[in-house]
């Protein structure tokens, strides 16, 4: 009986402990939210969204150029990485032989594990130095490499969930492989694919490390793709470690905008799919 009691108590204790763990996980999340929102809201104003940064130490100014810069960088990275990732995923699930598929899958996994700072020095070596200029393009190149593996693997998984009957029915009707894949399979697998795409967009939107050596930052409006460009996370980093109070204030405002946009992207992907894959 004593033994039974002990088992009972252990059971209760351990179960309570798991609840405690779950609550503990939420603490930093809540703290981050409270700080980013409370400090961010009081710091955000119209200037923040419309003005260029002021000289160091002067109060005022905003991060308009950085917000647009981040959108452009993300857009350009998406422009090449989404087609590459999606088509790569299609190839993996539809055409690849076993051996080649394993190699590609393995490479994609390796690629997704490469620390983003290493991708940054890679992009610096193959793009910035030969072209003799830090540029928006080199930044988008680095970000794209980060996107590809995630998109490729989620697309593959999503396509795998498309029932075989659908594909066979379409092919039996004499519709060729290309049209079957694009019109039937990809369309059915769309929600899963979009989730992967959105997740990868949300991730690169907040990436800082690879931009240090590529996009480099810019205090003015963007001036074309072959020039350095401002990025929101980069600006937050510079302002966060600065001693100027007004810059620290703007770092919180930037954090609020960054977190807001990132969550909007994540939430959109959830709404689109309404399920986790």
């Amino acid at each position, binding site marked *: 009986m004593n033994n039974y009691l002990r088992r009972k108590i252990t059971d209760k204790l351990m179960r309570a402990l798991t609840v405690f763990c779950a609550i503990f996980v939420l603490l930093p999340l809540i703290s981050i939210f409270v700080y980013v929102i409370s400090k961010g809201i009081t710091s955000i104003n119209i200037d923040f969204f419309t003005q260029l940064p002021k*000289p*160091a130490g002067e109060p005022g100014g905003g991060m308009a150029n950085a917000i647009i810069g981040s959108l452009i960088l993300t857009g350009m990275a998406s422009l090449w990485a989404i087609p590459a990732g999606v088509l790569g995923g299609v190839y993996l699930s539809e055409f690849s032989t076993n051996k080649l598929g394993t190699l590609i899958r393995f490479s994609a996994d390796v690629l997704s594990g490469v620390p983003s700072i290493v991708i940054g020095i890679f992009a610096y070596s193959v793009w910035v*130095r030969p072209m003799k*200029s830090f540029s928006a393009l080199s930044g988008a190149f680095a970000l794209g490499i980060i996107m590809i593996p995630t998109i490729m693997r989620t697309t593959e998984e999503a396509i795998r969930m498309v029932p075989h009957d659908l594909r066979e029915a379409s092919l039996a009707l004499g519709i060729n492989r290309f049209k079957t894949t694009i019109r039937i399979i990809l369309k059915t697998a769309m929600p899963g694919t979009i989730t992967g795409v959105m997740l990868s967009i949300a991730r690169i939107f907040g990436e800082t490390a690879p931009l240090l050596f590529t996009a480099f930052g810019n205090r003015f409006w963007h*001036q074309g793709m072959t*020039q350095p460009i401002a990025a929101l996370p980069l600006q937050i980093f510079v302002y966060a470690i*600065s*001693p100027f109070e007004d810059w620290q204030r703007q770092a919180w405002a930037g954090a609020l905008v960054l977190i807001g946009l990132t969550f909007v992207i994540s939430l959109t992907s959830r709404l689109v799919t309404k399920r986790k894959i």
Partner: protein
Amino acid sequence: MKKLLTIIGGVFISLIIVSGVFAAKLLLINGAGATFPYPIYSKWFYEYAKIDETVNFNYQSIGSGGGIRQISEKTVDFGATDGPMTDEQLQKAGAEIFHLPMVAGAVVLTYNLQEVSNSRSSLRFSPDVVADIFLGKIKKWNDGRIAQDNPGVNLPDKKIVVVHRSDGSGTTFIFVDYLSEISGAWKSKVGKGTSVDWPVGLGGKGNEGVTGLVKQTPGSIGYVELSYAVKNKLPYGDIKNIAGNFITPSLESTTKALDAKVDTMPSDFRVSLVNPSGKDAYPIAGLTWILVYKKQNDKAKGEKIVKFLNWAVTDGQKYAADLLYAPLPNSLITKIQNKISEIQVK
């Protein structure tokens, strides 16, 4: 769903097109380097954008080491440094690089000591005390040798937290150049350069990072450019100079340090201002240079750079005093202008 994607895609593509249109209008000239003059450079570039609306100067304060590296790699149009390039580095760059002094500034010892900063006067430091703090030999604020220089100040029994730069830095160069001058132990143990192997302390990125760390860490001491300390309302110490006077870092005492060297200025302007002989000269001062290639390969950019440099050493100088940099004396400005006129724009 398709609509949503089309909209998102449309927005991105139009943004990219818009940015392409922008590109045609403005010339962007990129520079990178020292954080020491960043307050005045960012002021200059901000003001200059209003004077010449066809050009923007984008300056990223990544550290003097970065300025030297990136101009040598030609990834930027101009560099900036407060530690002059070595002969070896100049050799490596492949083409002739000019050092053009822009302003002079002071490196100050700033500290975060609640107990003392309430009193009116700032702490005083002898050169050997400074060296030993950064060598890790003096560990506490109430050390007898600090107390000796500061009679009547109630120093707390607190550990000294040294804060230094984690990146390649001209501020570091000026500071360790000074330490090497005044301390044999420093010279043999650590030496001088834009990055060194620090015996003790925390590393912060840029003058911004060091100031930030000092501000956040009670008991800390670090070296930063004067305006960083002033703008952040941090106290900074008086340093004893060769003449034996404790000198408060200021615009005037920096100018005195510059005056002491103007007459003997070498033609390439690579000169150290530390430990000057002047009676009222602040001992840890330095020039800050913009680095440009003598031969400018891009005509449009080259012309704009020359125009800007001429503006900076003349009209631009009036912004220096407000930000606590010492403006250049007229005799030196003429010499620099002669040098600028040697820049060849193809």
